[in-house]
């Protein structure tokens, strides 16, 4: 997905996802959960369209229901007893609601991650962490390159072996399996030899010498700065709400939700703004695009 929020600097993307994921795991208050869940769903649909709707209906909805049911079976705290199970354990209203809340939280996190996977592509991650953990980032990027390369090489080896009648398409099952292992063995030897060659080539080109820079596609411009400042303000408002106890909720022994006050409404707005930031950006871009298209 090469548009909208994903075109911001990777650092902006990362800060956004860290913020929504942490807050999503943190706040148990139903209003906050609803905001996060709705935002995550909307953003996933903006990013992935119909595939996201399918994913949410086929996997997330049943997951939500099953998880909401599991909790009361194991958790018997709470004062409002609804009925007793056969083994004598009570089912309480609080534990059902708690199960629902934690299921909702889990599903929200999964959907946020599906957005994360669409936006934070591996190149962005490697760019961001290349400075902090250069060696490991290099390993990550090499592995990502090696996997398709090995699949390709495996095909070539397999074709070569076929010409001498020793690949996976000839003979009985045992023979095929044996040939398969031979192909894998050839593959491994090739991979290791090839790797040493790559390493020597890297060394002769000066890998690890001081003063070398790495190429990057990204630049941190005013738009990124603006977005980051807006995010920090929203996060600060949400956190101040947390400190004041607006975002919390008590489940046991009895349910107690923080009351709605003018300040808590401000916190709600800030949290919605934060979660919906990419969607808002998407809509604004759409309006802008429409207003600058020629009407001639």
């Amino acid at each position: 997905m090469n548009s909208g929020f994903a075109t911001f600097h990777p650092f902006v993307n990362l800060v956004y996802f860290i913020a929504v994921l942490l807050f999503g795991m943190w706040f148990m208050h139903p209003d906050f959960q609803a905001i996060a869940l709705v935002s995550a769903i909307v953003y996933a649909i903006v990013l992935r369209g119909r595939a996201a709707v399918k994913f949410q209906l086929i996997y997330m909805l049943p997951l939500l229901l099953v998880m909401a049911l599991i909790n009361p079976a194991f958790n018997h705290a709470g004062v409002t007893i609804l009925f007793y199970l056969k083994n004598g354990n009570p089912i309480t209203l609080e534990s059902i609601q708690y199960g629902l809340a934690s299921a909702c939280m889990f599903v929200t996190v999964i959907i946020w991650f599906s957005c994360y996977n669409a936006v934070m592509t591996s190149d962005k991650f490697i760019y961001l962490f290349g400075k902090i953990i250069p060696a490991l980032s290099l390993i990550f990027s090499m592995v990502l390159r090696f996997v398709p390369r090995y699949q390709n090489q495996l095909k070539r080896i397999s074709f070569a072996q076929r010409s001498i009648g020793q690949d996976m398409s000839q003979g009985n099952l045992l023979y095929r399996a044996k040939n398969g292992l031979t192909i894998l063995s050839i593959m491994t030897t090739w991979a290791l030899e090839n790797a040493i060659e790559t390493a020597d080539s890297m060394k002769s080109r000066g890998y690890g010498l001081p003063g070398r820079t790495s190429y990057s596609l990204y630049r941190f411009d005013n738009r990124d700065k603006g977005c980051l400042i807006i995010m920090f303000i929203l996060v600060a408002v949400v956190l101040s709400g947390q400190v004041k106890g607006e975002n919390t909720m008590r489940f046991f022994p009895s349910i107690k939700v923080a009351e709605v006050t003018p300040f808590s409404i401000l916190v709600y707005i800030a949290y919605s703004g934060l979660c919906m930031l990419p969607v808002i950006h998407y809509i604004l871009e759409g309006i802008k695009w429409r207003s600058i298209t020629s009407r001639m």
Partner: protein
Amino acid sequence: MQEHQIDNRNGWRNKRTLISAILILLVIPATIMFGVFALDDRKYYFISLLIILYTMLPFTLVFERRKPQARELIVIAVLTAIAVAGRAAFFMIPQFKPVVAIVIIAGVSFGPEAGFLVGATTGFVSNFFFGQGPWTPWQMFCFGIIGFLAGILFRRGWLKTSKLALCTFGGLATFFIYGGIINIGSLLMFTPVLSRDALIATYASGFWFDMVHAIATVIFLYFLSRPMIEKLDRIKAKYGLIESK
């Protein structure tokens, strides 16, 4: 020269032990206290995630600080890529994956640090293909720690490279270490309240998955361990890759 290098490596290992000790003795209890008092003992997943990340930190720091050579990097990358490709190749059979087998072979051939790095990196990078999620750090930690243990046990001479020894270790490690930890992880993901019943239920429902995973590890080790270790030893001998003794 050789002597000096070995000294240096010992130094790094001591540093890792020191960092680990600080983390385990100070930072982890502090985090748990923070969870119990500041977060009202409710955010188990969050706290456990932090602990998992702390345990991986010393490896990362030490590895980065000692500025590894290109050859070292690339051997780790190759083994990781093989493990990732192996996980991808068996995507249609749930839990039947060669990852643990390859991680153990890496640990035995290239030492505990390489074992840990191959394991953790495989967990991380393969999820670029399968999707990152709250499970990623747990998988990274489980794969990593098995590779680390394989390396340590082999160094100490407690783990031999015979098929029987490797398969036994692989099966037990997959079932008890990987299964044991990953089930706690998934329980914490699902229900924020930890209870003994729920834990037992999670282990019971995960039993067959862990069993299949353990059997897969045994089978892959049975077929792969000897040829793989031979190949890796040959590469080490041929190109003089220094073994971190």
